């Protein structure tokens, strides 16, 4: 099967759009939506064909350690499905949302390059190729955050650029250490060499903090989260939906899992670092979200705390913890991108994001209200919706791993998430109409409503179809974590 269509299709359509932009600089939405739809259907097709197996594609006919190869195993297939789902829905959403902005084709070109970079990181079998795709994601999202050319957009973009470049240089320095000790750049090759001869080499132990520092900078874990709360509110809604739904997970968590679980092998101290980093970011994000008045800033801080849940799940170290973390990646991508779309349509209809001025929109914006109910219930973890199951599995894994005090504190953190979700729902939708400021609010256009409905159904479907989701997607992905460094023998065997 041709795995490289996930990367080349967006690139080709983006290049065509650059040529087309000279003729009509306001079009391009249909080509983008068609590309993401093809990619989504391809990834769903692969979900059914490839249950648990691996797929490798060598470029130029050279075998693995010499040429470049794309590797698709079940964990990257799960991430591929998340990427293409969120990008397809956000492109549908942005067909009408982007009417507020100027020179729209550039927005779609940059989004296509962003999607190509995301698919590339997930499929890369070569560690330097993975770094170049990380840079494509970073540069595309720098320009997308600054798309509005406003005073805050520029400041948020420059801050994200500085922190993102530092993260990239740390990762590149770590790759340099890996190359100089092992002599090859292929992921499977490096993991085999490290596993056989160099697992206690000082340089590898010295490279691990560099890589961890770089990837956690990109995943916005607590000590390095400074750029996230500024980057999200000012970015256009589909971009911030992609950013917090997918980009943080792919360039942060996927990098940590792929490099540390499959290549250098994970040590108990590293797992504990991930566990407590996740724990701190849960509480930091939740507390900070309580004191914000900007709709999207609350969501940005809640993204930090939800990423903390995923880190917590990975940090536990047991297969149950991995299953909970992976399921939460899927659920968080669904409900957080939906909630950002809801925030975007409230911003589109009323023109402001300050929840103090908003109120009583449930009657004026019925579809948006319905979608916000589905996403906030899933965020808070109410049973029929997806969010409940992933958090429940993480709690179960914590209890089984014997960390009782931690699990009690995590249950307390549920109340915090409940608190800030009630704050948003109450102030924005349910409160009596206090604002004669916005007399002529009319419902958002069709494509935005359709996108929100699709994502709301997805949130509900992940909850109701939970046993099927667990069996098809999650179980095979958990093996990637458990067999760890065996990744090298399996992949180079193909």
């Amino acid at each position, binding site marked *: 099967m041709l795995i490289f269509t996930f990367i080349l299709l967006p690139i080709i359509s983006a290049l065509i759009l650059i040529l087309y932009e000279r003729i009509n600089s306001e079009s391009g939405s249909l080509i983008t939506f068609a590309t993401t739809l093809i990619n989504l259907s391809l990834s769903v097709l692969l979900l059914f064909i490839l249950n648990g197996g691996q797929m490798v594609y060598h470029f130029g006919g050279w075998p693995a350690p010499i040429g470049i190869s794309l590797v698709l195993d079940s964990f990257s297939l799960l991430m591929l499905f998340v990427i293409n789902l969120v990008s397809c829905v956000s492109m549908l959403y942005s067909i009408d949302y982007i009417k507020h902005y100027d020179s729209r084709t550039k927005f779609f070109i940059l989004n296509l390059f962003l999607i190509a970079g995301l698919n590339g990181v997930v499929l890369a079998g070569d560690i330097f190729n993975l770094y170049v795709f990380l840079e494509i994601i970073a540069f595309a999202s720098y320009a997308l955050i600054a798309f509005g050319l406003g005073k805050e957009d520029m400041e948020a973009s420059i801050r994200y650029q*500085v922190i993102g470049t*530092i993260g990239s*240089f740390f990762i590149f320095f770590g790759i340099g250490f890996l190359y*100089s000790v092992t002599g090859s750049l292929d992921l499977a090759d490096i993991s085999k060499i490290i596993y056989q001869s160099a697992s206690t080499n000082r340089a590898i132990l010295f490279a691990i903090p560099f890589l961890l520092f770089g990837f956690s900078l990109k995943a916005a874990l607590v000590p390095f989260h400074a750029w996230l709360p500024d980057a999200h509110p000012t970015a256009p809604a589909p971009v911030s939906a992609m950013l917090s739904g997918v980009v943080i997970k792919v360039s942060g968590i996927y990098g940590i899992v792929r490099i540390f679980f499959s290549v250098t092998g994970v040590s108990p101290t590293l797992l504990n670092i991930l566990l407590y980093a996740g724990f701190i970011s849960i509480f930091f994000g939740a507390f900070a979200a309580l004191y914000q008045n900007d709709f999207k800033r609350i969501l940005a801080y809640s993204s930090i705390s939800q990423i903390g849940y995923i880190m917590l799940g990975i940090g536990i170290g047991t297969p149950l913890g991995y299953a909970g973390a992976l399921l939460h990646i899927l659920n968080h991508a669904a409900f957080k991108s939906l909630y950002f779309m809801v925030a975007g349509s409230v911003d589109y209809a009323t023109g402001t994001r300050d929840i103090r001025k908003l109120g009583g929109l449930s009657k004026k914006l019925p579809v948006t209200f319905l979608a916000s109910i589905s996403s906030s219930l899933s965020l808070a973890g109410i049973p029929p919706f997806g969010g409940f199951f992933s958090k429940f599995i993480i709690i179960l894994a914590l209890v089984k791993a014997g960390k009782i005090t931690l699990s009690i504190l995590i249950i307390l953190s549920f109340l915090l998430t409940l608190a800030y979700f009630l704050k948003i729902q109450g102030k924005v939708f349910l409160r009596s109409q206090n604002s004669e400021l916005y007399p002529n609010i009319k419902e958002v256009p069709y494509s935005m409503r359709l996108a929100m409905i699709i994502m709301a159904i997805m949130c509900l479907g992940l909850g109701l179809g939970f046993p099927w989701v667990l069996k098809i997607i999650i179980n095979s992905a958990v093996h990637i974590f458990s067999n760890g460094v065996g990744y090298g023998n399996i992949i180079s065997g193909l």
Partner: protein
Amino acid sequence: MGTLIYISSFLLFLIGLYCVVVKNNLIKIIIGIKIMGYGVCLFYIMISYKSNAIAPIVLKDAKNYTDPYPHAIIPAIMAASFAAMILMLATSIRLYEKHKTLDMSKIKELKG
């Protein structure tokens, strides 16, 4: 003097990191990032050096060459980090036009 020489690229990296963390002026931050980039590229080329070996051009009698792998990687990364620096300069021009100052501490207070 086996591996001590690598410390120089490591120091260059740290000087760049120090400049980015401490300085407030935007152009100084961009200079700090440029120095970090030089440090990393220097590290890659120092790895690939082989004593008494010639440059990786195939000659009839030559037997050992320096490691050609990082030489293929570094020019592309240099071009990318140069273009990234122009992206940062473009954003700082726009920032200067809106905020009339390039001092990040003042810009942060303005946002409130």
